[in-house]
């Protein structure tokens, strides 16, 4: 379980997060939703210790994020940030290979190679493995970054808008795979999604944020209602039903 | 705005101080009874004071213009390859026609400055438009590359001493009557810019607005290029390049009174004169009776000011 207690965050004089307390359940797929600038990325980055914690406490499976050595945390959670541009010119296979780094520290074993191959295969990247990052499309590069986080093989997977740049079929394939990791692999996933219907279709738990505060949490059926969503996005939003799950209708 | 009178008073006070400070003691009260002191005053102190004032004022105005030309606040005539261009022109004329007349050398310097500044402006126009900080970096590197060429030619032709005086010293200790008058041309050029101030304001608004208002941007750009080049060439020829004045003074003034050049150019000129004069005075007093070049003091002070400008929080928004 990820436990967040009394977390606040400032950048300069601007208050980005205001006294946030919540928990993300283990063995579930959690979707973080909310308008642009709500603080979703910031919260995810704080959990993933990409940003130093200013106030409050965060633990991931009992590991205190502020105290635990970073190398140890890298075997507990993998985080994929929103900005993935990197300066060095790497082949896709090399990039995904770095996902194994926390386990081998520069000396990959046969097992590591096998897992890299598995990750490449899982995201349909095997034919592109020898290409450089700047020689593939944005969506393919995005999949390579996800594959890298996947190869890290951690109990927790934190993804910030992983569906960016992905076409419909790859987006769905990613969700199916994440669902499978949670259901069969006993892993836990927390992800920021903008397309509410992906959260509606695949998530077990939804955390809605607005203006640096938690706006609502709970099961999709509780959070993804006309009332909550309309207040969350300051727009009148209609919600229907499809196969027993909420379906947000965009055509007003 | 009460800025102009205040700055004028301060400048007058510093100019008076500048007239009295130096190796020989000059008492302004008894000046008419002391022919020796009168001679020092007219031959050395007054020319030096005027030279410093003109240089500071003209370089600051040139700074405003180059910033308008490339539409970026973080450049100055010393970081656009302009001074190096003037030095190249001077080197060329010195090598090709060592005995040529003064006006020819001046012309060569101005031409060289114009060529390299035009090169800079062309390079800038090809940069990705949203990358504000790339412009000054490109300017600094271009200056560096041109400086390497100048230095190389200077070594090869044994003219390194001149190159050093043009580009790397920036001091007023050698100024006497008869050796600084070119700077009046720089002052005149700056005055010319003031006459066209409104045009430069419109140019700064961008090609579309300017065309919409019926302004021929090409002509205004040429005028700006001319003024920047002439000012820089005159300064390089007479006292050597002074760093950072043209960069920081326009920024400081613009922060206080905005960019309506008709109102702000006089303030820019006054503030520039004040800054350089203050640095020259510090240079004269710091290790008296020796002198520190004003350019060196400005190198430290100006860089500090620039870093502050670069990192200060935006005043609004």
């Amino acid at each position, binding site marked *: 379980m990820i436990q967040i207690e009394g977390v606040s965050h400032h950048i300069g004089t601007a208050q980005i997060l205001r006294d946030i307390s919540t928990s993300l359940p283990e063995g579930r797929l959690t979707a973080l939703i909310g308008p642009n600038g709500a603080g979703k990325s910031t919260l995810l980055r704080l959990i993933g210790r990409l940003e130093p914690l200013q106030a409050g406490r965060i633990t991931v499976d009992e590991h205190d994020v502020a105290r635990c050595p970073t190398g140890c945390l890298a075997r507990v959670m993998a985080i994929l940030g929103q900005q993935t541009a990197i300066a060095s010119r790497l082949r896709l296979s090399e990039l995904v290979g770095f996902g194994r780094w926390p386990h081998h520290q520069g000396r990959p074993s046969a097992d590591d190679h096998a897992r890299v191959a598995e990750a490449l295969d899982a995201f349909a990247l095997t034919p592109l493995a020898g290409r450089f990052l700047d020689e593939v499309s944005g969506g393919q590069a995005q999949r390579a970054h996800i594959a890298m986080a996947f190869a890290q093989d951690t109990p927790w997977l934190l993804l910030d808008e992983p569906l960016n740049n992905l076409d419909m079929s790859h987006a769905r394939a990613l969700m199916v795979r994440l669902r499978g990791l949670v259901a069969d692999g006993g892993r836990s996933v927390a992800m920021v999604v903008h397309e509410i219907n992906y959260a509606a279709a695949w998530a077990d738990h939804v955390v809605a944020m607005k203006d640096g505060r938690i706006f609502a949490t709970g099961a999709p059926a509780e959070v993804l209602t006309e009332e909550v969503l309309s207040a969350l996005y300051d727009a009148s939003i209609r919600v229907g039903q499809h196969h027993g799950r909420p379906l947000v209708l965009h055509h007003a | 705005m009460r800025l102009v009178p205040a700055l004028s008073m301060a400048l007058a006070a510093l100019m008076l101080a500048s007239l009295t400070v130096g190796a020989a003691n000059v008492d302004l009260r008894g000046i008419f009874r002391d022919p020796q002191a009168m001679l020092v005053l007219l031959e050395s102190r007054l020319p030096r004071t005027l030279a410093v004032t003109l240089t500071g004022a003209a370089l600051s105005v040139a700074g405003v213009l180059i910033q308008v030309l490339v539409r970026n606040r973080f450049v100055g005539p010393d970081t656009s390859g302009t001074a190096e261009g003037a030095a190249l022109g001077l080197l060329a004329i010195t090598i090709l026609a060592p005995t040529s007349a003064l006006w020819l050398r001046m012309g060569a310097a101005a031409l060289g400055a114009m060529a390299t500044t035009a090169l800079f402006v062309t390079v800038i126009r090809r940069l990705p438009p949203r990358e*504000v900080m790339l412009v000054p970096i490109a300017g600094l590197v271009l200056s560096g590359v041109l400086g390497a060429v100048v230095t*190389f030619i200077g070594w090869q032709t044994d003219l390194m001493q001149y190159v050093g005086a043009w580009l790397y010293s920036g001091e007023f200790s050698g100024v006497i009557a008869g050796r600084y008058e070119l700077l009046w041309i720089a002052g005149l050029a700056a005055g010319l810019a003031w006459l066209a101030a409104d045009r430069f304001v419109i140019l700064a608004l961008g090609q579309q607005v300017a065309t919409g208002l019926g302004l021929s941007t090409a002509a205004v750009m040429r005028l700006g290029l001319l003024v920047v080049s002439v000012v820089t060439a005159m300064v390089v020829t007479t006292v050597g390049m002074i760093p950072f004045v043209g960069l920081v003074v326009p920024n400081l003034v613009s922060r206080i009174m905005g960019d309506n050049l008709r109102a702000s150019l006089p303030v820019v000129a006054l503030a520039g004169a004040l800054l350089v004069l203050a640095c020259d005075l510090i240079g004269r007093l710091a290790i008296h009776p020796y002198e520190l070049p004003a350019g060196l003091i400005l190198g430290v002070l100006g860089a500090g000011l620039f870093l502050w400008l670069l990192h200060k929080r935006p005043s609004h928004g």
Partner: protein
Amino acid sequence: MDRSGWMLAGLVALLAALSALWMLQGLGAGNRGFVLGLRAGKLAALVIVGAAVAVATVLFQTVAANRVLTPSIMGFDALYVLIQTTLVASFGTAAYAGLPAGGKFLSEVAVMTALACLLFGTLLARGGRDVPRMILTGVILGVMFRAMAGFLGRIMDPSEFAVVQSVSFASFNRVNADLLPIAAAVTALAVGLALRMAPRLDVLALGRDAAVSLGLRHQALVLAALALVSALVAVSTALVGPVAFFGLIVAGLAHALARTARHRVLLPAAALIAACLLVGGQWLFERQLGQAATLSVVVEFAGGLFFLYLLLKGRIR
């Protein structure tokens, strides 16, 4: 052997051939021992400087996650010059000259390492989101350090004109031979440590977020790399003076030739390429063209143009 292995072997062979050419070509009958000794000293200096500049640049580019930067563009060498001048100023010229060369150099390296880690560590940590502003800050800091060094030099010795000049230009001709053994030792140590860090550097090159996510102790590694960069810059600056853009060419070539981001290959490749360029270039200019002073200028000129080219292509990151 894989592709990288063959490439490194080829570079080693090329360097060996160039070294042999340098040592043996035109060796007359008389006084062979003396000439060979002289040539060997210079060869060693060129190789050391090449390796130091190359490794420092690659390390720095990795730390800054940026392919257009070199430590010199960011003001490292100017900082070293300033430290040197400050130490001379605080001990007094005569007293300082009397100290043993090796001890002086090592203490300069120590001060440099501490200061550079503090200054550039902060700058890199703060500048992550706005790379161009960070570069500009570094460049201006360099200008400021250089001016401060000139300033101190002037105060120490007001009649000296050459101080400001000598801190501005590199020369592969006037190598400081006293320092060769200690410089070789520092370089070997730093390069060895860099190679040991190579796998972690590969992760660092993924950028801060990815590196932290993979469990790298990011801050510590950045500081360690900056410390190595400082020591290497101190070596090259002490031996030949500031070389701003050479590293840029070398790192660019190394990336192009190695076609891998693995530092275990990149670092030695860059070092070998740099050594080959310097030895070959010096041979060409000194022996064939009789223009011993030219190499540094040509290298700087070409490097500066390469930098402008990268800027124009929008390759700032």
